[in-house]
């Protein structure tokens, strides 16, 4: 994540709060989260074989995987967005597919198409590359809205409908998409309906000086590079399903549910916002907070979990008014303002 970013939610804030598995033994979690912690640590270890730094990014990606959500990675070229997504997919022993979005890409290139078989005199559906457990969509915002629309059903309902026939996706099904900032040449803004289907939008920033030196040292000594063969799969689809079931059983104090609803609801009433977040954002915030709490060794959610994830869940779901944009504000600024305005349940 952005370590030297002036944004309010930079790496300094991304650091885990001083709580977690090291809590008093008398109040240890009632749920055994040791398996989850072990798997998470193994994935982190595999990622760190190639990726230098980006610990917060790795934690958020794991959170999204556990929360059964899709992730949109945004950053300028060369900050290892695609590499990180590929590595994460490699740590999971599930089917993987990669799509390079281009301006001339058609929906059938993504979903698949029905082919006529002359010998049988019938049509047969040929699945597209979307039929995989981990789908990496590279440069997603280089395809037009027509192709983006093809992803609406599959991202939300985990199925596609072709010629009146429903084709369900395998479980797990996660879309990891990368994009350049919309100010970059040849990019388009994704439709709001599609953005809303991403659990998180993670801004991938530049590494720190120390991290960049470490990247150079690794490359110079021949240990670095991008040899993906060094990364091993450490989590099966069955393991992942079990961990997700465990995450769903996390405790959430009722006041925290109200807190989440108030945070998201405030985006709809904020004068600086043209478009507020949807109820799907509330669900995303809840699911994400449960997964993050589990990753941090707790079987319950705290307000810190919600606050920590709020910018990642909300920044792509809200639209600033033109006045706010002209004043130089960002979505993160407004989210931070909202977080600071809402009373924390205690």
């Amino acid at each position: 994540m952005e370590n030297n970013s002036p944004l309010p939610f930079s790496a300094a804030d991304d650091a885990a709060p001083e709580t977690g598995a090291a809590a008093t033994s008398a109040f240890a979690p009632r749920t055994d989260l040791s398996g989850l912690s072990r798997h998470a640590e193994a994935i982190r270890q595999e990622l760190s074989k190639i990726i230098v730094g980006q610990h917060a990014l790795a934690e958020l990606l794991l959170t999204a995987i556990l929360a059964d959500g899709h992730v949109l990675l945004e950053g300028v070229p060369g900050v290892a967005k695609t590499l990180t997504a590929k590595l994460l997919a490699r740590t999971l022993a599930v089917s993987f597919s990669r799509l390079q979005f281009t301006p001339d890409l058609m929906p059938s290139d993504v979903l698949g198409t029905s082919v006529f078989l002359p010998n049988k005199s019938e049509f047969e559906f040929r699945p597209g590359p979307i039929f995989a457990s981990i789908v990496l969509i590279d440069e997603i915002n280089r395809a037009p809205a027509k192709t983006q629309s093809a992803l609406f059903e599959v991202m939300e309902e985990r199925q596609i409908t072709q010629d009146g026939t429903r084709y369900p996706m395998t479980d797990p099904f996660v879309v990891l998409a990368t994009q350049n900032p919309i100010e970059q040449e040849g990019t388009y803004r994704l439709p709001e309906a599609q953005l809303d289907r991403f659990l998180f939008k993670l801004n991938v920033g530049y590494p720190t000086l120390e991290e960049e030196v470490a990247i150079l040292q690794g490359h110079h000594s021949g240990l670095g590079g991008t040899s993906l063969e060094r990364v091993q799969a450490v989590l099966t689809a069955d393991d992942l399903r079990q961990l997700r079931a465990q995450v769903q059983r996390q405790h959430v104090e009722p006041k925290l549910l109200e807190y989440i609803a108030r945070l998201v609801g405030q985006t709809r009433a904020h004068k600086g916002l043209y478009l507020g977040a949807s109820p799907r954002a509330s669900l995303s915030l809840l699911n994400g907070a449960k997964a993050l709490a589990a990753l941090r060794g707790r079987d319950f959610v705290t307000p810190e979990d919600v606050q920590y994830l709020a910018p990642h869940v909300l920044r792509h779901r809200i639209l600033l008014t033109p006045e706010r944009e002209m004043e130089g504000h960002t979505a993160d600024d407004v989210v931070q303002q909202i977080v600071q305005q809402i009373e924390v349940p205690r």
Partner: protein
Amino acid sequence: MVIISLLIRLRRLSCLLVLLVALTPAWSKPKPKPQADLTVRPLPADRTTIVSLRRPAEQQLREFRAQREFQYVEVKSEHSAWDLFWARVWQWFSSLLATRGGRIMWEYGIYALLLIGFVFVVLKLMQVDITRAFGRAPRRSSLAYDTTTEDIHTLDFSALLAEAEATGNYRLAVRLGYLQVLKQLTDQGLIQWQPEKTNHDYVHELGASSLRPPFRELTQQFEYVWYGEQNDLSAAQYALARDARVAFQRQLASTRHAA
């Protein structure tokens, strides 16, 4: 210029042609064709045929007259009560405007309305909330936040803690104990109490103080018990939490005395 001169010449040419046609001798005109004799002559009177007069049947005429389509009765329009009301209103308004005072009021009333409209538009553009000016509460979301959260400065912690411990409500007792610690830290100026802050904000506010590690421990205990919904907390578990809190409060008191 060339076009105009061409037009003038064309006109002269057409006039010349007309003159030539008029002067053409009569022999050059085509001879009229012989026409049929179309003179109308009256028919000879037929005095032999008897003309019988045919009259419509009276009964049929009466039936026709009885039909609805032949009833040409003009219906007179009647004013409804609503029309009469508005007629009276307009009459009253006209009479009002006929007076000098009415004319002045009308003239200045228009200006006043324009002024009010202008001020309203300006306030809306400046996004000023004017609902409070009319005594109406600002619009709130349907899910209003619970404003009855405890005020740590007004709670009687000793009595509430004793009551919670006596009734075996250890979860509440842990909560009250933690809030009491927050109040003591606030009273000593070590943290700035604000409802929008999280517990870990207060941990960070303690900086590198020796109070930070035990306070972090207390915070973790509180979170496990409260956010973790540990409703079945045992007396032994609560005793641990209480001992940690009391020890911290002693340390806090000694810090105050040392200062």
